[in-house]
């Protein structure tokens, strides 16, 4: 862990290159240096990973020997930790998650924190799933629950070729093949328990206590099998520089994220599978298993095409990695990535591989024949629709083009940042010996630090500007935002914590009309409150930053006013959609600000990464023996 033994620019320098590039002179005659914790100046510049002052974790030599430390690099979470010397969050203000984790650690139950958190989170999700679901008892079309149930029904009864063509007006399958395979598996199990739940055609609109329990159980189990491990690995890999307590709190805050619980366990969908695969891809990027990451990301895409929102960020990162590796290794990685991706896609689409057949799934998955937006979505188009009637102006084809241009423009800064960052890092650290180039293959690209911000920017620009967006798609930008919260602290650097939570809460609010229709009002309040209490957030207590403070207070004030008005006032007959439209306006404003903020943060960090010049006078000549002795010495320095 480079941050532990050095400070300032050198730490950045070494982050990029691994611990190999230490000059001989330093090994033989180490310059006496203050402990890095005392070097606040360096931390102000880079906020290098430090031992958190409140941590119970001892600095021990064993830390240097964990598997990951062989690939030294900066983690984005390192940027979020508070600089030493700044006042820590007062005990009174921290949420129950931290209190509970602290108590568990003190009571000698440290090892139980993760299992208990996971069972507890699953339990809360199950409690929410006792409530209503989309389209309960509303024939003839019902809702998302019936759509999913219907797919279980058609996939187990029809041959593969008919999956995307069978009776399309009644909830025809419109998700990619992995969803279809997943439906098939769940349907097989379900019809083994009770065949009448999924009898072809006859079972349409089937609703019973037991079939509901089964369907809910499939959601929870898929969640536990994909999303839970992904979150666990995230905490273990991305936050490995942080104390055990922070990791545990992060795990809880990710698992209890209200929006995912409300949509998946309440409204009824399987988004956590898509999010879980995407997160697994991120987890693989940290340990530099880029091919695994590509496979996971394709799986995510093949579960729900909405994962495309992440594609610019992940794609640019991987491309950046190729640039970073230099012409030889980079090209090799590029081709391997391309081959893996194509192979995975081909495998998943295997049954539809004739030119005639492939059209069916594709036209279902990318429905450009539908409208710009359905219902009310808190994005740019729907919000500005109040003033500018886009659809009348441009017509469908023009809108498709315009929305594509807007979206691309929305994530372009992020793509440029990731590519330029990787290229300049490669420029600065490019050595003349091949051994060192090879070394780089094993570490991740320095731009990894920016990736949560990049994901946020890219998915938010899709959400705000792209064609055919659902209100539930806000879950995609929410995931990176929650990842940022999980590593950050109240009043911390860059206000990540405050922005992430504001975005989360407003996103839950933006789904209020939907949840209200599903009869999940109680769960909406309960789960949001639960999560905010868990992380210890209070809107009145936002300390840092004038912009975020004003934005939080005004948006929470507006939300509260809207909820009160909704119970007291009945909307005038001329504007039956008054409240949903107001909801869209409030939410879209906050989402827009979050999008701008994510670009700003990405740029800040990108600048910090690319900023320092390369120290030309220190050409790397370290031998493997020298490396080892440096390693040992720095461990001693730490203890």
């Amino acid at each position, binding site marked *: 862990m480079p941050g532990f033994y050095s400070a300032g620019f050198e730490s950045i320098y070494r982050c990029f290159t691994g611990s190999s590039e230490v000059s001989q002179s330093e090994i033989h005659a180490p310059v006496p240096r203050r402990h890095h914790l005392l070097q606040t100046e360096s931390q102000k510049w880079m906020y290098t990973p430090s031992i958190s002052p409140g941590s119970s974790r001892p600095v021990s030599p064993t830390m240097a020997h964990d598997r990951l430390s062989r690939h030294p690099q900066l983690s984005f979470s390192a940027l979020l930790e508070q600089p030493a010397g700044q006042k820590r969050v007062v005990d009174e203000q921290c949420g129950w998650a931290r209190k509970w984790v602290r108590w568990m650690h003190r009571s000698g139950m440290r090892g139980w924190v993760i299992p208990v958190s996971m069972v507890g989170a699953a339990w809360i999700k199950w409690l929410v799933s006792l*409530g209503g679901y989309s389209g309960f008892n509303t024939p003839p079309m019902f809702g998302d629950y019936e759509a999913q149930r219907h797919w279980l029904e058609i996939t187990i009864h029809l041959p593969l070729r008919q999956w995307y063509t069978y009776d399309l007006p009644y909830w025809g399958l419109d998700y990619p093949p992995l969803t279809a395979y997943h439906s098939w598996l769940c349907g097989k199990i379900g019809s083994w328990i009770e065949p009448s739940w999924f009898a072809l055609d006859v079972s349409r609109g089937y609703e019973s206590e037991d079939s509901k329990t089964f369907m809910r159980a499939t959601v929870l189990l898929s969640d536990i099998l994909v999303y839970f491990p992904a979150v666990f690995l995230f905490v273990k890999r991305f936050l490995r520089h942080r104390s055990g307590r922070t990791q545990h709190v992060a795990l809880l805050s990710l698992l209890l994220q209200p929006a995912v619980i409300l949509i998946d366990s309440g409204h009824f969908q399987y988004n956590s599978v898509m999010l879980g695969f995407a997160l697994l891809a991120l987890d693989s990027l940290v340990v530099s298993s880029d091919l695994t990451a590509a496979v996971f990301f394709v799986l995510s895409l093949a579960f729900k095409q909405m994962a495309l929102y992440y594609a610019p960020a992940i794609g640019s990162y991987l491309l950046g990695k190729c640039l970073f590796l230099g012409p030889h290794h980079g090209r090799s990685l590029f081709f391997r990535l391309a081959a893996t991706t194509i192979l995975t896609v081909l495998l998943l689409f295997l049954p539809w591989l004739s030119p005639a057949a492939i059209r069916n799934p594709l036209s279902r998955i990318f429905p450009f024949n539908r409208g710009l937006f359905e219902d009310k979505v808190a994005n740019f188009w729907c919000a500005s629709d109040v003033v500018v009637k886009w659809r009348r102006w441009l017509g469908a084809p023009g809108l498709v083009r315009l929305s594509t241009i807007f979206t691309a423009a929305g994530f372009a800064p992020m793509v440029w940042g990731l590519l330029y960052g990787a290229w300049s890092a490669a420029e600065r650290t490019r050595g003349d010996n091949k051994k060192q180039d090879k070394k780089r293959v094993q570490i991740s690209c320095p731009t990894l630090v920016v990736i949560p911000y990049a994901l946020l920017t890219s998915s938010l620009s899709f959400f705000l500007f792209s064609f055919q967006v659902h209100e539930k798609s806000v879950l995609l930008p929410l995931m990176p935002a929650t990842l940022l919260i999980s590593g950050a602290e109240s009043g911390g650097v860059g206000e990540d914590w405050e922005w992430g939570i504001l975005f989360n809460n407003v996103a839950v609010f933006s789904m209020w009309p939907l949840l209200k229709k599903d009869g999940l009002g109680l769960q909406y309040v*309960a789960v949001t409150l639960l999560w905010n209490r868990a992380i210890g957030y209070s809107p009145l207590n936002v300390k840092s930053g004038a912009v975020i403070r004003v934005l939080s207070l005004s948006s929470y004030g507006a939300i509260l006013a809207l909820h009160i008005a909704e119970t007291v006032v009945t909307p005038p007959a001329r504007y039956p959609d008054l409240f949903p439209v107001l909801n869209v306006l409030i939410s879209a404003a906050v989402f827009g600000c979050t999008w701008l903020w994510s670009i700003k943060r990405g740029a800040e960090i990108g600048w910090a990464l690319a900023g320092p010049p390369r120290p030309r006078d220190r050409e790397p000549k370290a031998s493997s023996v020298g490396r080892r002795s440096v390693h040992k010495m720095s461990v001693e320095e730490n203890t």
Partner: protein
Amino acid sequence: MNPKGIDTLASLTTDVSHSGKVSPEKIDAESPQPFHFKERHGSSSAFLGSTEREILILSTIIKVLLFPAYRSTDFEVHRNWLAITHSLPLSKWYYDTTSEWTLDYPPFFAYFEYVLSIPASLIDPKIVDLKNLRYDAWSVIAYQRTTVIITELVLGAALLRFIRGAVDPSSQRIISISLFLHPGFLIVDHIHFQYNGFMFGILLWSILAARNGNKPLCGLLFAILLNFKHIYMYIAPAYFIYLLRTYCMTPNGRPNLPNFLSLANAVVVVFIFSLGPFVLLGQLNQLLSRLFPFKRGLNHAYWAPNAWALTTALDRVLLRYVTISGADIAVNITAVSSTSRGQIGDTVFAVLPNIKPVHTFAITLSFQIVFLLKLWFVPTYKSFLTALTLCGYASFMFGWHVHEKAVLLILVPLSLLAADSHALYRTYLIVTVAGVYGLFPLLFTHAETFIKIAYSLIWGFMCLGPLNRSTYEFPSTFPSVVLDRLEKIYIAGFGVLQITVWLIDASGKASLAFLPLLVTSVYCSLGLSWGFVRLSYLYFRKT
């Protein structure tokens, strides 16, 4: 100044006043424990510490999320009582038979329902409509569930007070939290639907008064409680002896008449408020016949895990043995044909002699007398608490037509003893695990299976683990090692039991429908019987 310290001192001095001496273990308990809820009472709230506030909010959120969960007929029973008390005059409360769920709780509970019915009628008049049977709109569900949560705050307040004056606040804090979040209450009150939290709150308040040396309050609160729900008669003997010995008599055995009269007056006033109106109306007999229906059978639908469950199971096994081996034993033919498969009604034994209400009454009373004799000679607070638990325990084990829910009557007071010694903790552990598992069959719907199991497991880890560590003693003798192992195997057996129950369930044979219940009941009653033996032994050996 630290207010806790003063309270601790005060409780020590009150201890001195009624036990005569401070036992050394109490002083030991003052020494720092290996674990703490590090509590920094900040400026935020003097009334609730931040941990307590968080727990209150968290538990309320959980209970609110349970609103749409399964609810038993008890929900309709209580709705009907709201309707009866709201739409009928007092004189007709105990006569109404519009619904099959007639009012069969004592008058205070009827008054309580009357109070609850006033806001109910404002929220939705259909709730209190007598003819509107099985009303299950969202309004009535939310309203009734909310009243359970709000009235349960009585329990929370009592438990909070327990911490403030405890000898060992850190253990008491865990015990208090564990009681407030007890899976028993979650299952019986917040899912199945009853108001136990509220009534156990009164009971704990009364016990707290006993701990703090306020005997008249202790008696008064218990008299009030008795008029809320008469099931607490099971533990009334312990109250009677304890108050008689420590309050109505001087320590050297002379009657203390003024004290006796003041206590008697208080109790009589409570009963006048409760039964008075019905006595004046000449309805006392009708009321009593509602409260004590003796027409029910020995066992409830699902056999409560007590001694009779074991006896009934033994009878079934013997019957099977007789029919297979053809042994020459007189068999009751009616029992063979009508082996009551868990139906409400008389349980008739085929081989063993039949049990009549008077038998159960005699057995229960003789056990209670033994415990009360001990209490008479050692009338300390701890002794009272143990005797009270044991009285409830004896009634549960040997009573007539005991409900599985009555196990709370053991679990709640026993929890207060859990941190006293490792032996008591072990007893508490076995009784709690068996008792809580014995409540599982109350919720038979599939959706609630995960809820009850996962919650109980988490609760067990959080609450029992720390108590175990704080009291742990290494088993020192060979028999105790063997016992320790056997008990561990028994606890682990619940995992096997649950899997067995699932497997029988999954086989889907109608003839086996009662088997999971039978197996559960027998296995739990083994643990509860052992717990009874253990606790009785500890009571007579200790102090």
